[in-house]
């Protein structure tokens, strides 16, 4: 069976492999903890953008509240460890389960409606969760959860303060896994159904596509994967609080790279993250947090106005040639 790819030139696949191979061996060059942490965060945001792209890029269901899943993941790990003395690795299982349930809870009523009710509902969900967690003293309220460092290096406690390279490779593995999953979905019948309902939901229904079931499936996958990133973040920073894990700005950190790189394209969010996140950091360092937010807003408007399909789609359109993949 012949299956069309994203019309990407073969060179882009090879360049990706080379870059990822270089990133895999980068820590062996003793670059220092600062650079390791910087690239860890790049992986982190690229991974989050990929997760967001699954529901919003492929299925066209714009989520403005993905931070809720991120925060639930982080808090699941934090509460399990600090309240119950359980390994935060359980958070990697429980967090996705909880967020999948949340995704089903808001998706089931809103995916049946037209227009952007899902976007509104997801935004409301994140804000409600943030306010709830701010006032919930059992899990720290506004003070959040401060981890008590147990050991400087402990797999069972998911803490590697003595060697951040472990966090680097965990996040790198998750990024590679998410990229592979995205690629598999994009080139599967499931992915084609998602893109069909994205482009025209009624037409998709007229072709016997169960749009509700497909939307719910991708929503739970996206939510679960996002929660896992929240767990890793909690273990990396050893401190979590509602505003840094559930605010709209967390969702924007997923949304902007995906939109810049290209919605519904496998590599788009990764490219977008690797471009936009360093720019954001530089802006924050040189012009301050407030102006940095303004600049990011302008960037979003420019993307929507001049490059709505993203940077990678612009490249594809200019230099595309048919790419045939035999399955």
């Amino acid at each position: 069976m012949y299956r069309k790819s994203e019309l990407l030139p073969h060179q882009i696949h090879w360049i990706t492999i080379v870059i990822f191979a270089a990133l895999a061996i980068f820590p062996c060059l003793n670059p220092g903890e600062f650079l390791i942490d910087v690239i860890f965060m790049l992986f982190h945001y690229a991974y989050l953008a990929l997760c967001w792209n699954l529901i919003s890029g492929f299925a066209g269901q714009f989520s403005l509240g993905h931070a809720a899943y991120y925060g639930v993941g982080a808090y699941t790990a934090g509460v399990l460890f600090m309240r119950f003395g359980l390994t935060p690795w359980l958070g990697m299982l429980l967090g996705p389960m909880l967020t999948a349930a949340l995704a089903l809870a808001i998706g089931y009523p809103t995916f049946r409606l037209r227009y952007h009710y899902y976007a509104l509902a997801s935004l409301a969900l994140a804000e409600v969760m943030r306010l709830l967690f701010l006032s919930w003293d059992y899990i720290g309220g506004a003070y959040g959860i401060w981890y008590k460092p147990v050991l400087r290096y402990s797999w069972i406690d998911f803490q590697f303060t003595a060697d951040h390279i472990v966090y680097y490779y965990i996040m790198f593995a998750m990024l590679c896994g998410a990229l592979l999953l995205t690629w598999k979905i994009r080139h599967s019948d499931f992915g084609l159904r998602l893109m069909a309902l994205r482009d025209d939901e009624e037409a998709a229904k007229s072709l016997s596509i169960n749009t509700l079931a497909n939307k719910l499936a991708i929503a739970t996958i996206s939510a679960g994967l996002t929660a896992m990133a929240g767990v890793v973040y909690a273990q990396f920073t050893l401190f979590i609080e509602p505003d840094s894990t559930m605010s709209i700005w967390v969702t924007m950190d997923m949304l902007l790279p995906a939109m810049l790189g290209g919605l519904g394209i496998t590599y788009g969010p990764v490219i977008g993250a690797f471009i936009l996140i360093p720019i954001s950091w530089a802006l924050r360092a040189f012009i301050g947090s407030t102006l940095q937010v303004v600049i990011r807003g302008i960037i979003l408007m420019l993307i929507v106005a001049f490059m709505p399909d993203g940077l990678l789609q612009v490249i594809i359109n200019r230099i595309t040639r048919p790419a045939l993949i035999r399955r």
Partner: protein
Amino acid sequence: MTKRFGGVLALNNVSFGIDRGEIVGLIGPNGSGKTTLLDVVNNFLHKDGGKIYFNGEDVTDLAPHKLAYKGVGRTFQVSRVFEKMTVLENLLSVPVRGLSSEAKFQRVKYLLETTGLMSVIYEYAKNLSGGQKKLLELSRALMLDPDLMMMDEPFAGVDPAMLDRLIDLVENLNKTGKTFLIIEHNIALVHRLCNRVIVLDEGEVIAEGKPEDIQHNARVIEAYLG
């Protein structure tokens, strides 16, 4: 079938049957309820009364995707292809159950060759001409091998060469036993293709019969000419 939009009675007890193997034309002035009727049958619009039977089964409240799976295909007044997907992906996106990958591919190949779209197989659907989009939409609907095809003005805006191809496709499919319900304004095409014609005006069936009988019907003439 009855359908209201607020105080507007879009369909008023519209009732008719289609036999297997027929090509039935559905005509009427603009705003008579033709597209609304199709949307109600498909369950894209909630109906305010009436029943729908397909192959002897009550499908009145069946979800659109389940009705499609039962064997009711649909094309739209304005082509609704998946614009950000290629021609090939448009066809492959249809979940054809009970077919192996190879058989599905053969069906795709047959449809693309029959409709002349093989040359643009990797083109994004948004880059196709209007006629090509019509052909793609029809091909896509045929992927499910429906028993009944409901087509909403399939020949509108199509150039003569494409038109002949579309008509030949409909006629050949009809010979294999497919049933068609076609909304069409072009009376010459209706004469050429349809065994029977149903005329709607202001949400009501005002005439039904052979094309040559319908065109001399006084009520039909009045509906079109006012």
